[in-house]
């Protein structure tokens, strides 16, 4: 068992009790990170609802760039597996897409099924020096025929129109909402005469699994607040980094049973940190509880990047540490006694 309160090692029950006391006394707590198996994320939403907390997820910058464009005009999307199996033309937009591991897999194979089966695969890159959104706009202007003449974007537009199964690969955090909206509009233009999809690179965190969970739990995307009883969605107000920097948040629960980068505010804000085995250390936050890592010490439902779906990952071994969901439930049960006291 590994749990610490203010740097001192304590038993799990004592850490849970201290966490319940901290969160129940807070005016505006935040529940953030959510880089964990879905059972833990689900428990975190329940805890947020009972403490009047607001919720945010790791990777939400890219998530909201995607969701903003999606809400505006929809999206034509595909998966990495479909891209490897079917795409005869792939355009990488931006630095992250050009260096993605998927590019190596695409280079080493050719489409094996669908309309382009057996064809040579063409890999293209869009130079996005400067603002990537501007490069995408320029490409779309050439694709629409509003700009004409010799230009690298004109060549790319021709190649995309000639594709039988085209895929445009991009990193949402790099491209931003404006660039993604423009890219999806380009996809619509191309699909008037051929078949082109978009594929956004994952952030490496669980935000893509959190989005549907948040939707089926609250009817909203992840940045919701429960301060007024019902879930309110406001991506600006419930941005965890903004809440911590402005001093509006006075306590936090950071959930990261999977390895990830920690935010700078973790040491400054009174925080309960649930960290996976190996990442937990006494000085990370005021209260630290080590939990089992999903897919290693405990089974868990996680985002599967290759299949672009939520899938169960069984435990590879065993762990003496508790699962995060159980710890959060214990904290939630502890709230009632703290508030009654």
């Amino acid at each position, binding site marked *: 068992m590994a749990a610490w309160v203010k740097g001192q090692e304590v038993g799990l029950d004592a850490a849970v009790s201290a966490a319940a006391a901290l969160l129940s006394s807070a005016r505006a707590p935040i529940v953030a990170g959510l880089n964990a198996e879905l059972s833990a994320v689900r428990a975190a939403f329940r805890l947020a609802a009972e403490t009047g907390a607001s919720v945010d997820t790791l990777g939400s910058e890219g998530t909201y760039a995607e969701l903003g464009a999606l809400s505006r005009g929809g999206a034509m999307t595909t998966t990495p597996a479909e891209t490897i199996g079917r795409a005869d033309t792939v355009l990488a937009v931006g630095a992250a897409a050009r260096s993605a591991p998927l590019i190596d897999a695409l280079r080493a194979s050719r489409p094996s099924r669908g309309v382009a089966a057996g064809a040579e695969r063409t890999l293209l890159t869009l130079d996005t020096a400067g603002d990537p959104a501007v490069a995408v706009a320029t490409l779309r202007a050439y694709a629409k025929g509003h700009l004409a003449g010799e230009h690298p974007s004109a060549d790319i537009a021709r190649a995309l129109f000639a594709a039988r199964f085209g895929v445009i690969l991009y990193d949402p955090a790099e491209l931003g909402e404006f660039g993604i909206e423009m890219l999806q*509009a380009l996809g619509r233009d191309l699909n008037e005469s051929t078949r082109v999809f978009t594929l956004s690179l994952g952030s490496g965190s669980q935000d893509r699994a959190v989005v549907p969970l948040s939707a089926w739990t609250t009817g909203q995307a992840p940045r919701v607040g429960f301060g007024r009883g019902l879930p309110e969605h406001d991506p600006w107000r419930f941005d965890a980094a903004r809440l911590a920097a402005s001093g509006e948040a006075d306590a936090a629960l950071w959930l990261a049973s999977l390895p990830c980068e920690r935010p700078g505010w973790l040491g400054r804000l009174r925080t309960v940190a649930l960290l996976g085995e190996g990442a937990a250390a006494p000085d990370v936050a005021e209260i630290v509880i080590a939990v089992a890592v999903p897919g290693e010490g405990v089974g868990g439902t996680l985002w599967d990047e290759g299949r672009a779906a939520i899938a169960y990952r069984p435990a590879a071994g065993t762990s003496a540490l508790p699962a995060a969901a159980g710890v959060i439930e214990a904290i939630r049960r502890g709230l009632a006694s703290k508030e009654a006291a």
Partner: protein
Amino acid sequence: MSVLTLRGAPPERLDLNGITPLALSLLSEAEAARLPVGTSRRGLTLGDCFAIRLDGSADLVIEGGHERLDRVGGGLSEGTIRVEGDVGQRLGEAMAGGELTVSGSAGPFAATAATGGRITIKGDAGEAAGGAIYAAKAGLDGATLVIEGEAGERLGDRMRRGLILANRAGRLTGARMIAGTIAALSVGDHPGYGMRRGTLLLGAHGTLTPTFVETGHHDLVYLRLLARSLSRLSPAHAELARRPLKRYSGDLATLAKGEIWAAA
């Protein structure tokens, strides 16, 4: 004149949507004091945060602003609200008429979805003033927004109609505009990114995107009418409309029915 006096720095964000002269004129001071404005579980009311003096008039003054006062003037349809200080996000959201003045600065999304009336910010405005909030179809939608200081990025993002005046503005001014008019004495890079229709009148500007093309110098009656219209709000902006101007058409990545008039 009714007066709300802020008792001190709010301990949490307050939501003042619907706190308008018309709404308050129907309430006693005791009833107004019970209006919920808090955003946490503590259930703060108007009376917890403000000293309230009501006289049933169409003029309301909020003494002592703060950047945690959200949606000030939200839903205003008639009368005036004057804020002595700063305000938070969504100043005048969905306002339909009347006049709203802030002596300090405003947070993001000022005048979002406002369909009528005039909003004046004496200080600076945050990001996306006159712009759309997440997933909304449009930003400013018919009202007039005057920013006497500096506006942040994305001024007028996805605005649908109305007029925005700013002294200076950040990058991406007029991005994704559906229609309407923005006049600014200077803006940052990439004004009009993704705009479909609408007019930008700019003094100095940063880099234009390659998807705007110059269409020459023009002497149009429209510009003289625009100058006359602007002179009622800001002589400096009216003077800009009378200067020699170059016209750029765009954004060619979209419908391309927008225009940028830039000082030659």
